């Protein structure tokens, strides 16, 4: 059923009891043309674009838990494309352009809200880096501007711009097209749209082994039986190394816990997104009124979906430094995800030494914004057995050639 004002009305009349399920829950078949492992936003988007743009409809998404239950449903939903290096900027900008039409494309409201993102500068060097990044963005056709402390105070009156604070705010970069989206809706929207094109979405199906015949892929073992496939795309975020070791390949990925919190709901108080690299905190307000706050990663490797208290304390200090007005707001919930960090803070969207096996990982702390673009280029890579121009630089080979794309610290803040 197509969602529309009419269908809303019709279903309201029957007390919303007759909505059809948004996607089927089929039994896995014995064989598919292509499998996507991981039912996060990236995996679901990959399946959707495989079916829509490449005519590959005999596709299944295998998810060990429930779709969107990984980092997709745990992130602070900041979407922006103001990355420094051209390779990264063009990839994230492709994603931004897909976001701008996504609700229409999917016939599902992903609540993409272009409320702007400010990246604060606290030192002269920060401001020089901001000038440089804003200029680089503009050369790549990405909207970006430098904002002074005076303008900041006007736009965000609650922000502490006092020149005597411990880390005084000197200015910021602003991307007006940036913003936030509803994370669950992104997973559900892609799932529903992919399902309508014939993709099987199979939840509660954990991949436990990857079967290869010499240099080629044959299929996977799962908790719901063996499934054969000609092509397998792996998009499992924090579990990338676990799947890689099943396939007998090595990745330059480290898994770390990353946390976020929401506060009790407040009246509207913050109508944009504020991020600070120097004090390391980022904050926005959800439509429900909760402040959505993100922390940094725990330094050590971890697969537990929870983080440490010192990290929470650090994030809170940062937020109170920026917004003293929030010092008495109570936190409602906290949680963690497992992020897959690459040495250059850039993704790996790549063929592998195994024919027919592809990996998409390394998005680390900042891949939500890339969800549509990542799926779009990964679908291209799987369908053509060749990367798209936009992800050619993001291959596994770069760690041998040395052509890393160093976005650590270069791109505003990590998220």
């Amino acid at each position, binding site marked *: 059923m197509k969602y529309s004002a009419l269908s809303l009305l019709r279903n309201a009349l029957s007390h919303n009891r007759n909505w059809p399920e948004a996607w089927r829950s089929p039994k896995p078949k014995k064989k598919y043309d292509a499998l996507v492992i991981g039912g996060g936003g990236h995996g679901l988007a990959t399946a959707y674009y495989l079916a829509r743009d490449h005519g590959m409809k005999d596709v299944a998404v295998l998810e060990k838990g429930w779709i969107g239950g990984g980092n997709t449903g745990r992130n602070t939903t900041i979407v922006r494309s103001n990355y420094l290096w051209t390779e990264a900027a063009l990839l994230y900008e492709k994603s931004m352009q897909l976001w701008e039409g996504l609700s229409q494309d999917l016939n599902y409201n992903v609540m993409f809200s272009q409320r702007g993102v400010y990246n604060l500068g606290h030192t002269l060097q920060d401001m020089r880096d901001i000038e440089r990044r804003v200029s680089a963005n503009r050369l790549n056709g990405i909207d970006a501007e430098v904002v002074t402390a005076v303008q900041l105070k006007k736009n965000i009156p609650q922000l502490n711009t006092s020149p005597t604070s411990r880390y005084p705010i000197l200015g910021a970069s602003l991307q007006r097209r940036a913003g936030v989206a509803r994370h669950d809706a992104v997973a559900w929207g892609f799932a529903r749209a992919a399902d309508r094109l014939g993709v099987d979405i199979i939840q509660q199906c954990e991949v436990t082994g990857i079967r290869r015949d010499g240099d080629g892929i044959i299929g996977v073992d799962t908790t719901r039986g063996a499934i054969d496939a000609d092509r397998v795309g792996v998009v499992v975020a924090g579990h990338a*190394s676990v799947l890689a070791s099943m396939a007998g390949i*090595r*990745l330059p990925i480290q898994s770390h816990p990353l946390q976020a919190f929401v506060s009790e709901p407040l009246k509207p108080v913050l109508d944009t997104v504020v991020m600070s690299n120097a004090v390391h905190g980022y904050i926005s307000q959800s439509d429900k009124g909760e402040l959505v706050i993100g922390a940094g990663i725990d*330094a050590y*490797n971890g697969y537990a979906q929870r983080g440490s208290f010192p990290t929470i304390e650090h994030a809170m200090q940062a937020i109170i430094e920026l917004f003293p007005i929030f010092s008495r707001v109570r936190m409602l919930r906290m949680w963690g995800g497992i992020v897959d960090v690459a040495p250059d803070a850039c993704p790996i969207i790549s063929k592998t030494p195994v024919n027919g096996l592809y990996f998409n990982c390394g998005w680390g702390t900042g891949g939500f914004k890339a969800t549509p673009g990542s799926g779009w280029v990964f679908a291209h890579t799987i369908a053509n057995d060749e990367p798209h121009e936009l992800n050619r630089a993001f291959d596994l080979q770069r760690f*041998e050639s040395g052509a890393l794309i160093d976005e650590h610290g270069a791109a505003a803040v990590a998220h």
Partner: protein
Amino acid sequence: MLLIDCPWCGERAETEFSYGGEAGITRPKDPAALSDAEWADYLFMRNNPKGAHRELWNHSQGCRRWFGIERDTLTYRIAGTFRLHGKDEG
């Protein structure tokens, strides 16, 4: 919060320590003899297991010495700490 048993100072809070990554990676004696793939493996590739992990820690706010820990990356339980003898633990 992890409680870490420094081999020299005893049990201290996690905040006194810094993390040094996977243990047992030694710098190749003759880097020039390595292929690009072998060098990349040394520099970047990591086991990153879900489960038992031997890793380096430094007691940076204490005795400032390096040592090793075997920790489970899922439960965070620490099985033990060990001193580095320069031989297999870099």
